């Protein structure tokens, strides 16, 4: 499976998901501490009231069911915490006093900040929102419940319980009121967990908000970074691919990025490699030209020396060697002529003027150069206008025909066909004969590539003929191809060149 760089970075960004997790654990910790603190505070309240009552035992002589009054109420009120309820039971589990309210009186809350408002809907999904709308009655069962009972036994106790309608959690803490060694009553302080719950929620919202922002910002930054890198890499790849064509020739050299990082380095080294490759290719392609140029002078020395020698009086057997030397020279000459034809063409096509011509005229003249060979020529009825040089086109056709003549077997005529196809003119030269060797596919039109079997004494083949075809095809803005006939009975050489624009509707 192909995993793009971008996808990989997104995967890596998942590590950032640890941030919210850490925040969550941290807030949980805070909640635990808050609860602990609340328990301690409530217990302390109960203890303080119990201590106060311990000094004033007469206050416990109240009748059950009556509201606390006077000093008792004062003590309770002064020691009680906001939003807490305090009640006192005596040993007979009679409610001696009940002060305070579990519900929050002032509903005024701090206006939520921007972040909270933003996170609120998200947080609502996971957070339990405390409500002030719950049943705050003090059920009978609670008065005789375990918390009060424990205190009456002399042991302070605390307990979490649900409100009767289960909409709030109530924390109660009790403390015994001692009179000498006896417990005379129990003070029970109660509070909802709404306050801690709210604090917890606020903290949680903040954590969620902040980590969400951190996560999104981090992931976004990473993604942008990855996109940038991947874009640059893709561009580099495209450039590198476009730089070399299917035949391995360097089409253009990369500009080389100026970026001062590894990708920039890569681009620059690509550029250098391509430049060197291009130089080497040019060196190879110019080799034929240079060779022919460099060889010409020494050959002229040999030739003129032989010419001089021929004018001397020589022993009879010298004539044999003279003839052999001449033969060798003639072969060298052929090689040189072919080489220089290719190089001359290379420089020729660079600045040859282009004109409009009818390719049919050129095709019709093709057989004239090969008298004694049979041809089958097929040209369309209307002109095939091309833009280029007719004499070069003729030279190209001549090379194609010469190639077909050389490889043709039997006396089936060589088929030359010219036809417009879409915006192109397609020229095919086809002959019966052996198939193309697979290994050479795509290289036939390169300089000095030949598939001919080497025959000693035969004319030297440099593989420049089809190279010339390619040069001229490219001069006309087209391409050259070699294919096997569909039925495998021979070979088709095909040159596709664009028609002169405006000549086809």
């Amino acid at each position, binding site marked *: 499976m192909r995993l793009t760089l971008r996808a990989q970075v997104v995967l890596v960004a998942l590590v950032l998901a640890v941030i919210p997790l850490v925040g969550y654990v941290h807030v949980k910790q805070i909640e635990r501490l808050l609860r602990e603190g609340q328990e301690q505070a409530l217990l302390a309240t109960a203890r303080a009231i119990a201590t106060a009552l311990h000094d004033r035992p007469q206050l416990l002589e109240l009748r059950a069911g009556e509201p606390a009054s006077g000093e008792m109420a004062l003590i309770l009120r002064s020691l009680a915490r906001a939003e807490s309820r305090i009640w006192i039971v005596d040993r007979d589990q009679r409610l001696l006093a009940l002060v305070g309210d579990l519900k929050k009186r002032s509903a005024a809350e701090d206006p939520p900040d921007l972040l909270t408002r933003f996170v609120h809907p998200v947080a609502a999904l996971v957070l339990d929102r405390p409500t002030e709308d719950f049943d705050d009655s003090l059920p009978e069962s609670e008065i005789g419940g375990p918390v009060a009972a424990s205190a009456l036994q002399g042991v302070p106790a605390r307990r979490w319980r649900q409100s009767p309608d289960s909409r709030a959690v109530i924390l109660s803490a009790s403390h015994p009121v001692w009179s000498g060694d006896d417990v005379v009553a129990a003070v029970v302080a109660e509070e909802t967990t709404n306050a801690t719950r709210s604090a917890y929620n606020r903290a949680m919202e903040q954590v969620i908000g902040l980590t969400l922002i951190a996560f999104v910002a981090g992931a976004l930054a990473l993604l942008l970074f990855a996109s940038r890198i991947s874009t640059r890499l893709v561009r580099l790849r495209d450039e590198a691919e476009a730089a070399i064509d299917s035949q391995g020739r360097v089409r253009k050299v990369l500009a080389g990025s100026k970026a001062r990082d590894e990708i920039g380095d890569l681009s620059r080294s690509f550029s250098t490699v391509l430049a060197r490759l291009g130089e080497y290719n040019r060196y190879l392609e110019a080799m034929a030209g240079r060779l*022919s140029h*460099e060889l010409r002078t020494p050959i*002229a*020395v040999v030739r003129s020396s032989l010419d001089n020698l021929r004018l001397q009086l020589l022993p009879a057997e010298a004539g044999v060697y003279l003839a052999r030397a001449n033969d060798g020279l003639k072969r060298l000459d052929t090689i040189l002529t072919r080489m220089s034809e290719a190089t001359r063409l290379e420089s020729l096509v660079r600045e040859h003027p282009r004109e409009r011509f009818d390719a049919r005229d050129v095709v019709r*003249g093709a057989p004239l150069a090969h008298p004694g060979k049979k041809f089958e020529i097929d040209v369309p009825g209307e002109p095939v206008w091309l833009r280029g040089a*007719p004499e070069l086109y003729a030279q190209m056709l001549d090379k194609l025909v010469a190639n077909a003549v050389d490889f043709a077997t039997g006396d089936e005529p060589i088929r030359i066909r010219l036809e417009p196809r879409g915006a192109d003119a397609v020229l095919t030269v086809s002959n019966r004969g052996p198939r193309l060797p697979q290994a050479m596919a795509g290289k036939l039109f390169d300089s000095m590539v030949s598939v001919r079997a080497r025959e000693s004494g035969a004319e030297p083949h440099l593989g420049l003929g089809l190279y010339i075809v390619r040069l001229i095809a490219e001069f006309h803005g087209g391409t050259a191809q070699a294919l096997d006939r569909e039925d495998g009975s021979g070979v088709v050489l095909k040159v596709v060149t664009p028609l002169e624009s405006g000549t086809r509707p």
Partner: protein
Amino acid sequence: MARTVAIVEDDAAIRANYADILKKHGYQVSAYGDRKSATAGFRTRLPDLALLDIGLGEEPDGGFTLCRELRAMSAALPIIFLTARDSDFDLVSGLRMGADDYLTKDASMPQLLARISALFRRADLLREPPAAEEVLERGPLRLDMKRFHASWRDAPVDLTLTEFWLVHSLARYPGHVKDRESLMRDAHIVVDDSTITSHVKRIRRKFQAVDGTFNAIDSVYGLGYRWNN
């Protein structure tokens, strides 16, 4: 008196070999190894024909300079470039400098000798009384065989001698295809096919400079050229 052929060639072996052969064929030869000595020699005595190499020692284009100097001294002196360079650019430059021919060094000695004698023959024609047909007229084309002067629609066309002979050869029998070999024969030159192509291209261009619609020289692809009226 024997005709003098000047060879300017920086390669001593080739120079000596050519000099020997030309001497054996009855020419008087003055051989020079560089441009300075050649210029000095030409100042003293103008040869009847000059064989010039383009690259002369340190001067890659010394032959071109020499050719210009020689042309300035004599408009009719036959000049042949004999060089290892075979690019079309060099060929065209050489002909533009006023050379009558351009031969690469792989040309054989008989070819060179044929060319030298052809050029001498043509030079002789210039001095002899004009042939029976003094003026050849083919539509707008007028060839003055006496002065080797060509005109098209009464405007002079500045052709070199080789080009003049080629036009003459083509225009003599309009409609007949002249292959490259008979063109060479008629123009007294022995060159390779692409030199003929180059010559014809230059001829067309010269006529087109006078008349943009000129198209009297047809290419018959695969065969040669044809004058059409």
